[in-house]
């Protein structure tokens, strides 16, 4: 049983890699596009930095957080959201797949349909996101007041990976809603994504409603803010950061369950 599961996981991982690789080869046919997307990713990520540096040049602390700490949160959240387009940009096409009945073939192949959808495209803008966010993160990590230990580093890595997994799961959930909404565009997921951007600032600045939304109902804060709070050992949030792996696993279970439910509603554009 364990061996079988392991075999299935390895097989799917290989298929996933193969699909993404094939798409990368296809995208690289247009080299200009590749660079434009990466540049767009970098420019978009710089937006928040412009905002932060403009206002923080006039106010030294925001809700008790210094400029490097703000950049740390911003960069950490940027890394986890930047991976989403790289690893699962196909999920953004789910709405149009459903609308046009383009899931038909995926449902007749011996590979998980969710996996086939996720690996249907690669968004190179994510590479730009990652480059910009990683730069911010590095800059901030060298400036924040943290006593580094090997354990520290290991936990931070685990939290970052969990944060990435969580963002992926949340993106799957937000797009899976398309099975019920039946619009050709993933409007719900786009809205959710923008809401997620709010979690790139310290949660304490928001009122109860937004804090509850970003920290619990749609816990984007686990993909950036809570891990940062844990690292910096800030106030009442420190212990929440350590829960990130648990939250990620729960959201993946939810995502897979919801996607299965959604498939049962799929009507192949009703022909």
């Amino acid at each position, binding site marked *: 049983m364990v061996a079988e599961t392991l075999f299935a996981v390895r097989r799917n991982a290989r298929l996933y890699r*193969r*699909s993404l690789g094939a798409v990368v*080869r296809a995208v690289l046919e247009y080299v200009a596009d590749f660079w434009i997307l990466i540049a767009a990713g970098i420019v978009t990520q710089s937006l928040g930095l412009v905002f932060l540096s403009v206002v923080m040049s006039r106010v030294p602390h925001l809700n008790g957080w210094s400029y490097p700490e703000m950049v740390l949160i911003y960069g950490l959240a940027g890394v986890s959201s930047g991976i989403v387009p790289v690893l699962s940009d196909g999920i953004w096409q789910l709405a149009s797949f459903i609308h046009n009945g383009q899931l038909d073939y995926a449902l007749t*192949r011996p590979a998980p349909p969710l996996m086939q959808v996720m690996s249907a495209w690669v968004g190179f803008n994510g590479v730009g996101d990652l480059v910009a966010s990683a730069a911010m993160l590095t800059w901030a990590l060298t400036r924040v007041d943290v006593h580094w230990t090997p354990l520290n580093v290991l936990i931070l890595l685990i939290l970052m990976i969990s944060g990435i997994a969580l963002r992926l799961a949340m993106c799957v959930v937000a797009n899976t809603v398309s099975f019920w909404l039946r619009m050709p565009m993933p409007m719900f997921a786009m809205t959710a994504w923008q809401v997620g951007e709010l979690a790139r600032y310290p949660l304490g600045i928001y009122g109860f409603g937004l804090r509850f939304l970003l920290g619990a109902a749609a816990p984007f804060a686990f993909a950036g803010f809570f891990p940062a709070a844990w690292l910096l050992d800030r106030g009442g949030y420190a212990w929440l950061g350590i829960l990130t792996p648990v939250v990620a696993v729960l959201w993946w279970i939810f995502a897979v369950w919801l996607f299965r439910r959604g498939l049962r509603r799929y009507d*192949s554009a*009703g022909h």
Partner: protein
Amino acid sequence: MALLEAHDLTKTFRRPEKDPGLRGSFKHLFQRKYSTKTAVGGVDLSIEAGEAVAYVGPNGAGKSTTIKLLTGIVEPTSGEVRIGGLVPHRNRVANSRQIGVLFGQRTQLWWDLPVRESLALLRDMYDLSPDRFRAQLKRFDEVLGLDELLPVVARKLSLGQRMRADLACALLHDPRIVFLDEPTIGLDIAVKDRVREFLRQLKAEGTTIMLTTHDLGDIEDTCERIVIIDGGRVIYDGSLAQVKDRYARERRVHLQLGSELTVTELADRFPQATVTAGAEGRREFTIAFDKAELTAGAVLAGVAQIAEVLEVKIDEPAIEDVVRKVYAGELLLAEGSTP
């Protein structure tokens, strides 16, 4: 137990209704009406291993929906399906290894990749060994001329080339049963012949085939059984030969002559047939007859005795005509209607 068993298969769709125009859109903002459409209503079907079944009916009759129900793509509203003991929409992955699917209107090739890459991705999904994969490609090259398509990016393929590549995709893993939804739609004669030849070969190798088409020629040499569906219900299920003998007997011979004749001259010669003059008056004629009473050969030979024949075209009835006749109840389907 048969390879494929479907019992009382039903699928209904719910669609929002909207009045036309700006007012309609505005009204629709506040008040939504829905209508329920039954695409497939209570279909019973049983296909034995090795059978080749033609599944025909007019547009919107529920053909494609049936195929999607049988392949597990959509879940039935009620009723059940089993293929080789598996319920397709519950055991998608296991089931997908025993079925092959082709939708003529839609490709499963990766749009921006060469055909070879698409096939290689499918090879990995179906866990084919490199040797097996090579052998399959060789086999497909022989009938479908696949080799010349392998390096071409899918979006640059012509319709006919695309269909050949898609057939290879659908059959790469040697499925026990293959569902082909309009595999010759929009193809020219040469490619059509190739596809038909391929179907014959599949059939000879023992693959179970279920085929939907609008073209009688597709099924003539391959399928011995025909299922006719209309309005989501099976209205005939029986032997193809019988249907053809009964409903597809009319032939039309179009002639262009080197010398002038009159309708009466020809009608006198073929009292069993109906003769009409064509656009070019006395040099163009159409002779319609029942193939049980007359043959095209006899018509040609007869005309040749009185005039020089320049051009000949022979029309057989399209499957739609047959379906229309069956549906209109022009001739009763007492025998063979229950399998």
